[in-house]
């Protein structure tokens, strides 16, 4: 063995995860449009929905009482959606750059690759969502951080769901090539109507409510409304969300590995095209 290579641990290597995070950091810092894109849409979202919230709270007693539910929902939805995009776009960068073959031939393990994508998802989320929360405070007087400790439970559950969806969508692109790229951009929107972001679960037909309760974000958005309207933190809802997230997370990893194996059987790792 060459003397120039250090001993590498048999399990997960923090050095390799760190190398991948550095790779995405370099990319982000080399491209101002990429940075701007992270802030642009969340900022537009919060301003548009914030003014709508202001308007309807002047005309509706309910919304006047439930101040901030709309803005809170917009911010939490963005954590869910941008968390997944932050994960998947970093993965897509490898496909666009035709770099996946280099990575797969290096000692980088799939679990390390996925962990680095999760870290990047947090970094990209912070760049996009922190300015969004500051805009909500400045324009609409909504202090997102005043939610306090429950915010940690909301955030953890949403980010776990976003990673599960991101891992699954990335696996589909890995197996099917960039022809499946649109899945990355649209998959989370399939969750949107059932997660009851802007309305309570009771609005849905009875049979659809059963489906909605299989999704962790439903518990988070119900929990948020309970906190902002009734000032009650529903720990039971967060526990349920966490349990379902654990199942989703494990399932998404298993599916990703199965799709990776399938890509190797079909020889699509080196092509990666349409």
């Amino acid at each position, binding site marked *: 063995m060459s003397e120039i290579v250090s001993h590498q641990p048999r399990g*997960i290597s923090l050095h390799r995860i760190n*190398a991948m995070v550095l*790779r995405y950091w370099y990319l982000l810092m080399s491209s101002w449009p990429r940075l701007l894109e992270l802030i642009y849409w969340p900022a537009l979202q919060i301003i548009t929905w914030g003014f709508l919230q202001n308007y309807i709270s002047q005309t509706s007693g309910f919304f006047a009482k439930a101040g901030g539910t709309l803005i809170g929902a917009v911010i939490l939805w963005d954590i869910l959606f941008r968390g997944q995009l932050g994960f998947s776009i970093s993965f897509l960068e490898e496909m666009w750059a035709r770099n996946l073959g280099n990575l797969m031939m290096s000692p980088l393990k799939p679990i390390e690759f996925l962990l680095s994508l999760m870290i990047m998802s947090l970094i990209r989320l912070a760049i996009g969502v922190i300015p969004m929360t500051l805009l909500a405070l400045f324009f609409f007087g909504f202090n997102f951080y005043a939610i306090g400790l429950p915010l940690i439970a909301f955030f953890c559950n949403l980010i776990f769901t976003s990673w599960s969806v991101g891992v699954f969508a990335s696996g589909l692109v890995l197996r099917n090539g960039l022809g499946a790229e649109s899945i990355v951009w649209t998959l989370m929107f399939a969750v949107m109507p059932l997660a009851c972001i802007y309305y309570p679960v009771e609005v849905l037909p009875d049979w659809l409510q059963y489906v909605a309760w299989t999704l962790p974000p439903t518990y988070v958005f119900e929990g948020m409304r309970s906190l902002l309207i009734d000032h009650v933190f529903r720990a039971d809802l967060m526990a349920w969300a966490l349990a379902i997230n654990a199942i989703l997370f494990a399932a998404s990893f298993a599916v990703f590995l199965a799709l990776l194996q399938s890509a190797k059987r079909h020889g699509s790792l*080196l092509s990666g095209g349409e």
Partner: protein
Amino acid sequence: MRLLSQWLNDGHMQQSGTGPAQAPNRAPAADQDGSAAIDVAHLVKVYKTTRAVDDISFRIARGSITGLLGGNGAGKTTTIAMIMGLVLPTSGSVAVLGAKIPEQRYDVLGRMNFESPYVDMPMRLTVRQNLTIFGRLYAVKHLRERIDQLAADLDLTEFLDRSNGKLSAGQKTRVALAKALINEPDLLLLDEPTASLDPDTADWVREHLETYRKTHNATILLASHNMLEVERLCDRVIIMKRGKIEDDDSPERIMARYNRDTLEEVFLDVARGRVREGAHE
């Protein structure tokens, strides 16, 4: 535990009883007895109805340079991809540096590297950033010095802080070669290493590969369409056609067998089915 093992090892179960139990950087047991760098046995790859690789077997000695020749669709790239573990064989076996592929590939990936026209280095990153990332992935010690040394060897010093996307084809190939050599691999797999290079740069790359083999006793397997390159570099040539091995010998003996003066003429004979009398005896 089984699931954890799968997550850690690319979906493949690590075969505890059959493989090396030591750390990845240490040579596996089968690697220490002077056995082949690459051992391919009855390898078959079928894509739907196409037999891309059809029952091929060969062993490649350590410290040798072997050329994999063949026309488009002969199965060269698929063979190399199976050796790397990026494509799973339909049947047959591959062992690299004593480790079974794909089951034990993480035991030897740190000792291998590759270059292929099917992959690129990230375009927006500078040459230095790209080499830093791959150096870290391969856990290269004294990385800054290693990058400077590679840049000097491959005439990249003045481009180190230029983004990869702004380099010429020749410069990009040299960067890809620098990445392939970053960990001083014992085994180098090259797919068309001098494609799209001008003759001067191509010659320069060949010279560098020859020097690397000599100084590091490295094993090189290269797939190429460039017959002069194969004649010059390779101790041995494996000619593939329609997924099968058509011939396998030193360039001199193959040319003598086909009664030809150049490998290019042999290649044309094989490709067009004009196998000469006396060949394959």
